[in-house]
């Protein structure tokens, strides 16, 4: 066996994928959905129910949002888990790892339920 811990290897791969996705894509999403709506003449459809419902209804956009946000969440939960390790707050790494995977699963399921 060459790579002993396959779980951590795959987790790191998705962490890396999520990292580049989050780096390239999240800022514009945050701006369009959370920052621009604060301005009255904001050039974003997100303030309007009908337009948003229509846009998010498109299957390709749904798929894109689920993929991008899931990967970003994978990246983020991986980092949260390891910063807890670094800060010396963890006595049992195995339990924290399982808890972080459960949390990750819950967030992604919530995301999918909200979008699909």
């Amino acid at each position, binding site marked *: *066996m*060459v*790579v*002993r*811990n*396959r779980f*951590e*290897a*795959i*987790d*790191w*791969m998705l962490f890396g994928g999520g990292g580049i996705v989050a780096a390239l894509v999240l800022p514009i999403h945050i701006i369009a959905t959370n920052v621009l709506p604060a301005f009255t003449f904001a050039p974003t459809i997100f303030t309007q129910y009908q337009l948003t419902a229509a846009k998010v209804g498109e299957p390709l956009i749904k798929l894109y949002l689920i993929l991008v946000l899931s990967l970003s969440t994978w990246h983020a939960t991986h*980092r949260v888990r*390891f*910063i807890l*390790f*670094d*800060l*010396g707050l963890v006595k049992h790494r195995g339990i924290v790892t399982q808890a972080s995977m459960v949390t990750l699963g819950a967030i992604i399921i919530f995301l999918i339920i909200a979008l699909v």
Partner: protein
Amino acid sequence: MVVLDSLVYIKEQLDGSLTYRWSCRMGICGSCGATVNGTPHLTCETLLKDLKGPIVTVEPLYNFPVIKDLVVDIDDFMKKLQNIKPWIIRKTERPLKEGEFIQKPDEMDLYRQFSSCINCMLCLAACPVYASDRQFVGPAPAALALRYILDTRDQGKEIRLDAMTGEGGIWDCTFAGNCTVVCPKNVDPAAALQRLKVISLNELVKSILMPGLTK
């Protein structure tokens, strides 16, 4: 005047019991590592004029048990170094009459940087992961493992990856980058660790997609 000079002065003039390691006094043997003003340094290479403040605090290297004063117990590092087998591993031996292994300059360039490691352990002293988990393999052993994996004469990639991808292995590295910042020889162990992760992933994908191929 460097920090080592002041340690020598203290031992000769003020307190003969002060105990510290040193040898070459020119930054190549890796013996004189210590924490100076909170950061790992080689005391023989740290000029006093470059340090901030009127008081210079010298402590033993962090993350290692202390034997006496500035002398730390390096057994854990030695064990980890041995685990990654820092020598050329061959699967197929080459008879003497076939001559030596020829290695071109650009092949040597592949690993040259990582071969600069002097085993001074400043990187392990600076690593926040090693600080919270002494099982972690550490930057220096990983950098040296990569040095041999990248060496065209070596055939021991699988053995070394097997030693480094399990408990306390490379996956625990969070790319803090402290190791590269403190390394006195520009080895860039942080890069070595990330490259090892990528190499391991390649091996994993190969073993999943082409199981027959991995020997």
